[in-house]
């Protein structure tokens, strides 16, 4: 290229960067961080893979930037509703502005101080939003780009983890799903804490896998520090976030241990069956089981009586009092068992396609069918994945089990179920992608595969 062209491009780039930085400094910083991340993430891939990887990730990032820009253009600015996708966004955003004003010493009213520091909804994420906006000023749209970056970083982490474990095909399959699935797309550009929660949980998972695999003690120590730091950051991001992450990891290692040998698996299955028999046979244990799930029953009933499309897990007679206290749900052991079974089945199936009740659910239907496909492919993926990399497979499956159990047992509203069920998709999708590859290998003729 001639010097003139260089000059013209350099001036144009400078002009564009200047304008972009004036419009949204945070977007420029996020774009720079994205470029650095992309360069680092492309290492270790074959040239063909790198091309596709870069194309997909850049496309995902650009689409999200475009979506944020559309939100900006269609929203009334300086309004609490500006570019709001989910209700909680407005609250988090204005609360972070109030916290920023406190830190900057900008005078506010008593109500503003109360809102800034009230216990409800308090989390590290609000401080992250506040400190970022301390640096760059109020940034309702720039923060969306930061969340996009965090989300894509988490997906790329998982891509590398699963590519090493299962090979390129399932990894690229999972990558495409996570980058372009509509629900996750909108979550990733939201002002909610989901992106930060996702990247932190992935960081913990990746550090644990890396620590187990590494032979160097210094690396192990560094990764252990990453795990501790990740858990510390998770501690108030979501109720029970640390418990869910740690119990998921513990469950994963337990699964790994008991599936290592045939006899250990046999002993584990027998132990579980014996435990179930013991609960069924001893009235005291049955009663204890019924009492232990009572808080979950109460939470479920609370969901059922909220506005929206509800689904029921208890016998019909219990849905009488909208403000019942937990002690009113005195389920018998048999009723408790039915509650648990219905919870598990509903977690996978609700809303049934022929019982769709709202336009929102109708819009979600294609993605819901995709969810069914993920569930159907998961068992085959789990078996194949276990043969290829037992550690990663066990951890991916077990990491989501505690979250799934809590959501299944406490939810009674279809919208809430869909929202919380999406939390496990970023982990489940890789296992299902392995299942899809196995299925394709079985269905397609070998010539087709070769081509």
């Amino acid at each position, binding site marked *: 290229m001639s010097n003139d062209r260089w000059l013209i491009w350099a001036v144009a780039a400078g002009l564009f960067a200047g304008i972009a930085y004036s419009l949204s400094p945070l977007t420029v910083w996020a774009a720079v961080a994205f470029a650095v991340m992309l360069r680092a993430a492309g290492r270790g891939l074959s040239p063909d893979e790198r091309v596709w990887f870069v194309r997909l990730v850049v496309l995902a990032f650009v689409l999200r930037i475009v979506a944020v820009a559309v939100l900006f253009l269609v929203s009334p600015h300086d*309004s*609490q509703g500006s570019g709001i996708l989910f209700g909680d966004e407005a609250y988090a955003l*204005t609360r972070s*502005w109030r916290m920023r004003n406190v830190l900057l010493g900008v*005078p506010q009213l008593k109500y*503003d101080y109360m809102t800034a520091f009230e216990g409800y909804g308090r989390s590290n994420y609000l401080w992250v939003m506040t400190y970022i906006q301390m640096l760059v000023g109020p940034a309702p749209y720039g923060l969306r780009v930061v969340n996009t970056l965090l989300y894509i970083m988490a997906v790329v982490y998982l891509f590398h983890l699963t590519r090493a474990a299962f090979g390129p095909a399932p990894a690229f399959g999972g990558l495409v799903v996570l980058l372009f699935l509509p629900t996750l797309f909108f979550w990733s550009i939201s002002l909610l804490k989901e992106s930060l929660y996702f990247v932190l949980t992935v960081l913990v998972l990746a550090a644990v896998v890396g620590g187990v695999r590494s032979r160097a003690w210094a690396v192990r120590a560094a990764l252990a520090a990453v795990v501790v730091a990740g858990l510390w950051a998770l501690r108030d991001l979501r109720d029970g976030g640390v418990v869910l992450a740690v119990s998921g990891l513990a469950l994963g290692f337990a699964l790994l241990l008991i599936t290592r040998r045939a006899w250990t698996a046999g002993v584990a299955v027998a132990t579980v069956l014996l435990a179930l028999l013991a609960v069924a046979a001893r009235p005291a244990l049955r009663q204890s089981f019924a009492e232990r799930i009572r808080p979950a029953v109460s939470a479920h009933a609370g969901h059922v009586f909220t506005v929206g499309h509800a689904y029921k897990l208890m016998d019909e007679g219990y849905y009488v009092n909208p403000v019942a*206290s937990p*002690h009113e749900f005195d389920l018998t052991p048999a009723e408790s068992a039915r509650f648990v079974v219905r919870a598990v089945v509903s977690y996978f199936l609700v809303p049934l396609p022929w019982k769709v009740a709202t336009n929102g659910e109708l819009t979600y239907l294609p993605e819901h069918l995709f969810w069914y496909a993920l569930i159907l492919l998961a068992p085959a993926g789990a078996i194949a994945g276990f043969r290829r990399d037992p550690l990663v497979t066990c951890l991916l499956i077990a990491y989501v089990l505690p979250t799934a159990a809590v959501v299944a047992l406490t939810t009674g509203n279809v919208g809430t179920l869909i929202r919380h069920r999406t939390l496990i998709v970023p982990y489940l999708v890789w296992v299902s992608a392995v299942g899809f590859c196995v299925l394709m290998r079985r269905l397609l003729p070998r010539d087709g595969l070769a081509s």
Partner: protein
Amino acid sequence: MSRRAGFIDDQGRVFGRINLFDAAIGLLVLILIPLAYVAFLLFRTPRPRITAVTPAQLTYIEDRAAGGSDLSGKLKVFGSGLRPVLRASIGTQEALAFIFESPASADVLFGNIEPGTHDLILYDGVQEVARAPHAVTIPPKGKPATARVRVAGVLIDLDAETAKALRVGTKYPAAGEAESVLVALGDVMPDVRTLSQPGGAVEVSTSDRWQRAAAFIVDCDVSASNDCRIGSVSLTGVGALLHPPGAPGPLLLRVQEIVPATPPQPAQVRVRLMGPVTVADLVRVGDRDESAPDVDGRAAMIVALNGRQIAQGDLAIPVGRDADLQPVSGVGATDRVAIIDALMTLGADRTSTGWQYRSHPISAGRPLTFVTPRYVIRGIVQSVTVADAAPAK
């Protein structure tokens, strides 16, 4: 000729016509003017403007926003360009809250503002951004609605001399218009304090201090819903400590009950008491209900017992309490239950819906709980006869 020569010639002119520097400036201006205009349209922060301010009704929701501050009123502010974190003041006094609804409307909550006409001013940080002159009128404060009540409780933390010197009929202050009158007194007793804890409460004795049950007639402010206040003390609060208005320093009443100041009507009440046989055996003629201090002039007393029967019945005991102090479960058994018809005399107050005994409505079919230090027994009211009273509406 090279491409360079075709685009910029040896004189530094673009296409041989315009000076490169001039062309760059021209291009920049051509690009920047529309860009600046578009940016102005997109990014300008519209200046807040107030078009109307109207008083609005307070609801319980605003109580939360006030966060315990005295909340006097709410204004609805209409306009344009309103933003979530603006600050409002009424005259020179800050509002309690500016609650953003949309760029066109917001609520302003305020506390005690001096009567008069004030400007409503909006600030962005410290910068005034909008003002509505003379938009807020605070009317002069009238005398708050008051009610005369009889406050019963226990005077605590008394030294022996003060405890013995108390006399029924004493007016406080001693000179001038009485603010409170001591109308009933119990015996002098050693002072005890109740210490609450998660599982319940314990009582401990204080050394060298004394207490006396007492009742005062006072006027309280009833302008707030469901409340009766003297200064900052709410008499409806559990265990409120009241310094009787006008009384000298050391008097402090632990409030246990408030009843109307007017004397009660004497009433005869027939109650069918029911309870375990062993409890029913403790019930005696002459027993007095001590569910509230016996200085309120209303305590029920058993004057006759008859018609004792024994029947099979279900007795249930609640077990355990959850965080809301609701029983979490119970145990029950079939047992022998005693049924006694008791005739009681008590002081009843007329209310707009009927007769009332202390803080409980009393009429045929309603439950009544009779409390003594030895037992607690419950029953169903069979009939109420009030002497020389017109039928309750």
